């Protein structure tokens, strides 16, 4: 863009500047929107490990679109079952993993289907 000389604005100049400002603003807006969409689709994955019959972290907060992976590190199988039945893993043997992508905001309580005293929660932010 050629720099405009500093002088009193004529009507045509003012219109031109307004157009530029609008263009930049729109461009920025679009850029931000696009970045958000990209972020949602590729939100950093999150991990929950199972050690000593405990989900860690027991309370996890992630943005919508996050894929959460549970990995069982015990010598006993465990499973991951949503209290509202939204998701359910198979039994996970030692070092087996299960992943679920949380696309909508909300609070998702879950437990181990074999040892139901084991509970956890994923809070999904918009």
């Amino acid at each position, binding site marked *: 863009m050629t720099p405009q000389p500093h002088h009193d604005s004529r009507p045509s100049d003012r219109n031109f500047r307004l157009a530029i400002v609008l263009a930049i603003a729109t461009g920025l807006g679009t850029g931000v929107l696009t970045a958000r969409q990209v972020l949602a689709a590729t939100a950093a994955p999150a991990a929950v490990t199972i050690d000593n*019959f*405990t989900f860690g972290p027991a309370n996890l907060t992630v943005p919508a679109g996050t894929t959460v992976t549970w990995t069982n590190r015990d*010598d006993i*199988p465990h499973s991951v079952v949503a209290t509202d039945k939204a998701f359910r893993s*198979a039994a996970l043997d030692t070092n087996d993993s299960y992943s679920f992508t949380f696309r909508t905001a909300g609070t998702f309580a879950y437990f181990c*289907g*074999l*040892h*139901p*005293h084991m509970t956890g929660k994923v809070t999904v932010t918009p």
Partner: protein
Amino acid sequence: MTRKPPDADDEKFTRRHALECMVWAGTGVLWTMSGGVPVARGLLGEAKAATETGFSFLQMSDSHIGFNKAANPDALATLREAVAKVKALAVKPSYIIHTGDITHLSKSSEFDNADQVFGETGLRVHYVPGEHDIIDEARGQAYLDRYGKGSKGAGWYSFDDHGVHFIGLVNVVDLKSGGLGNLGAEQLAWLADDLRDKSSSTPIVVFAHIPLYVLYEQWGWGTEDGTRALALLKRFGSVTVLNGHIHQLAQKVEGNMTFHTALSTAFPQPAPGSAPSPGPMVVPSEKLRSMLGLSSVTVRQTGTPLAIVDSTLDR
């Protein structure tokens, strides 16, 4: 004793600890009931004497076929050792009651291996499922296809033998978040109906995988609605409740009810609260067989007392 909680300063010698110590020493203990109080009568020889006048059956539990981790690299081999002991018994028991966790992961190959080894006993096995037996894709269908014939719901049933009424319950299905073992309304209604016509003098033997009373809530060792089942059993003069799941001996007497959990044939688990979790307990390999075993239950023709003898694999 390696299983003592690290923070337990008091040397209180509870009955369970006494029982554990005796079993770890490799002795068999004969428990008889006298006025509702269990009395240790002696060793295995006396159990045999009791058998001659009554009938006996075995309780085996928690075979976990397929388990191959540090606590026992070959759970099939230790089951084979237990079965060898069964085959060598001088007095043949009537059958085996298996209180669940036949397999570790509900795989067909695991059930096949268990069936083959138990088959060598030549004895009928009455099963109830553990939570490890219903984790196939169809969530329990593999178990029911093999062992569910003649059972109701998730696999509960009853039968009569030598004047004793036997009831197999399932408390590992449809578990609720934050909860314990679960029998459910349908099974409890069936139990009430099953007991309705039974005289209060009928000796009752109930068997299920998870203990019916709350043994240690923090580890989920208990059954949420177990007290409802026990309330239905209260009027009976002799009730023996056999469970597995916790891979160690625990005995409790309440009125006319005796609760007994059997050893596993696969791996031991820690005493309540003595470890960060109830997971498999790794012990020196030379010690493992003193912590695995089976129980023999003798029913006398004359009266209500049932004698339970626990024996380990190292003797």
